[in-house]
């Protein structure tokens, strides 16, 4: 099968506008909001074949396909989603959504607050994983989906999948939680705060209201992304790809780009600062920090997971040190203690945290095997 006929093809985003006020975990509320989403495949007659894809930190709704024939890049999980791929769009109806607070079409800090006619900026409320899941449930209602065949996510997306299984037990048949954690470690929160500090201390940040100043805290975003990127890769993976390669072959004894890794990180940082919103980055990292379903149960994750009715698949990657296999095993252990049906695999990979976006063979095989079962269950 060639790549062309494995693709969902040309896709377009849609918007869903919600006028019902949304109370948030922080105590704040949004009067109304918009979610941008994309769908691929066909919803079957009994609406049982829908899969929700939850995005990670810098993700969005565009998970598969291309916007036009010359589009250079496909959706961020195009290698996993499409006809004949593990998340097979000839069997499933797949929904990708940009989280509330995002900067790709859903209401967020950079969008206009209808009450003021100005960008929300610093006044956009802080979001949590549970707030996102609430908005996604409302979107499901609108699409007529009473129960997801599966909710799938990696990293921050995995946290959403896990929370779905707790918050709406009857609405999730399967939860696939990949390269994720039941809560961030202190080290992880520390990394997030360094990234946030880079943004918050950028002179162009203007307390979050930089839009009116026609400013962009580009330096801060760039540093945040560079730091993030380092933590998403493994030392081995980075060594394999860049090593100590020098651009000119010789030391220059200065502070310009000399090593290839420097060039790569700066390029990634620049690219990111062109399209991502600084306030969204702050908000998404905070949602990561706050996630801790066990918190309301005295730290007992098994007790928190008790209501879940879903079957679970967890996967982690050996070289992922930001969301290490140990963190996934914590969730697995809690699921076992709660008597849930769970499968778990630890995938050999040199790709670090980013491995969940790659195509290491056992990972693809695992996803395919699991989702085949899901498809059979719903006769898709």
């Amino acid at each position: 099968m060639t790549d062309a006929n494995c693709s969902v093809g040309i896709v377009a985003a849609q918007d869903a506008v919600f006028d019902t006020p949304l109370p948030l975990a922080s105590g704040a509320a949004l009067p109304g909001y918009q979610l941008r989403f994309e769908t691929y495949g066909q919803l079957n007659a009994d609406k049982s074949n829908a899969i929700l894809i939850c995005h990670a930190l810098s993700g969005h709704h565009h998970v598969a396909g291309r916007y036009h024939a010359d589009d250079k890049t496909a959706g961020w999980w195009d290698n996993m989603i499409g006809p004949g791929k593990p998340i097979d769009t000839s069997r499933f109806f797949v929904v990708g959504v940009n989280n509330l607070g995002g900067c790709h079409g859903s209401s967020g800090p950079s969008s206009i607050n209808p009450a003021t006619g100005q960008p929300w900026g610093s006044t956009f409320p802080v979001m949590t994983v549970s707030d996102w899941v609430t908005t996604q449930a409302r979107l499901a209602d609108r699409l007529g989906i009473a129960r997801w065949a599966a909710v799938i996510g990696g990293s921050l997306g995995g946290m959403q999948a896990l929370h779905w299984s707790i918050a709406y037990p009857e609405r999730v048949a399967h939860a696939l939680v990949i390269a994720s954690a039941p809560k961030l470690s202190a080290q992880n929160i520390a990394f997030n705060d360094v990234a946030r500090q880079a943004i918050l201390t950028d002179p162009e940040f203007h307390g979050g209201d930089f839009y009116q100043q026609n400013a962009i805290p580009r330096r801060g975003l760039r540093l945040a992304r560079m730091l993030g990127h380092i933590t998403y890769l493994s030392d081995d993976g980075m060594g394999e790809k860049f090593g100590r390669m020098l651009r000119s072959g010789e030391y220059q004894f200065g502070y310009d780009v000399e090593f290839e890794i420097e060039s790569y990180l700066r390029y990634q940082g620049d690219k990111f600062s062109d399209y991502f919103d600084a306030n969204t980055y702050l908000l998404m990292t905070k949602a990561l920090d706050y996630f801790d379903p066990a918190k309301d149960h005295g730290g007992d994750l098994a007790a928190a997971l008790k209501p879940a009715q879903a079957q679970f698949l967890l996967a982690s990657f050996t070289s992922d040190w930001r969301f290490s296999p140990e963190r996934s095993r914590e969730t697995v252990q809690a699921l076992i203690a709660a008597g849930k049906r769970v499968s778990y695999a630890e995938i050999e990979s040199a790709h670090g945290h980013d491995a969940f976006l790659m195509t290491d063979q056992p990972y693809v095989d695992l996803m395919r095997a699991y989702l085949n079962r899901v498809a059979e269950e719903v006769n898709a």
Partner: protein
Amino acid sequence: MSAIDILRPDLRLIADWIAPNSRVLDLGCGDGQLLAALQQDKQVQGYGVDFDVANVVRCVASGVNALQGDLESGLCQFGEQRFDHVVLSQTIQAMRHTEAILNEMLRVGREAIVTFPNFGYWQNRLQILHGHMPVSDTMPYQWYDTPNIHWCMLGDFEELCAKNRIRVLERVVMDKGKRVSLLPNLRGSLAFYRVARG
């Protein structure tokens, strides 16, 4: 024909020892066919554990809950007495921590089912007599590439059980898929034990 009926004879024997609706942990579960059959015919709930990701994938494909893990590091992810039966089929001889796993099995489960190739089988003895390490259907490896490091015979295993205050509830010895009752330690190539604490 039921799913259990078409299992390999050794797995069928294990399946016969497992009560309907029970909770089963299958250690070194391979492709998960024992659990798959038990789920189908006896409404058993459980998990398979295997070190090899390819086996985890095979289990997932057949609808068996499988957890990738190393038995040598124990069964710490499982709480006390979570299972009715804990199965360790033809794996104990390849384990470094033989005694530890046996005790772990009876920590997390009410009963353990342990099977292993019987080193005392006459063909093995014959090969040793001819100056060679045994190679057979149940012990298909050459001495230099075998994963098996702790060979034992029936008496050895029973002694280990006694030392750990483990009671043998039932013992079956098989050869070529058939039960052997006369001179089991000589004529049996595979040993099956059902054991419990106390």
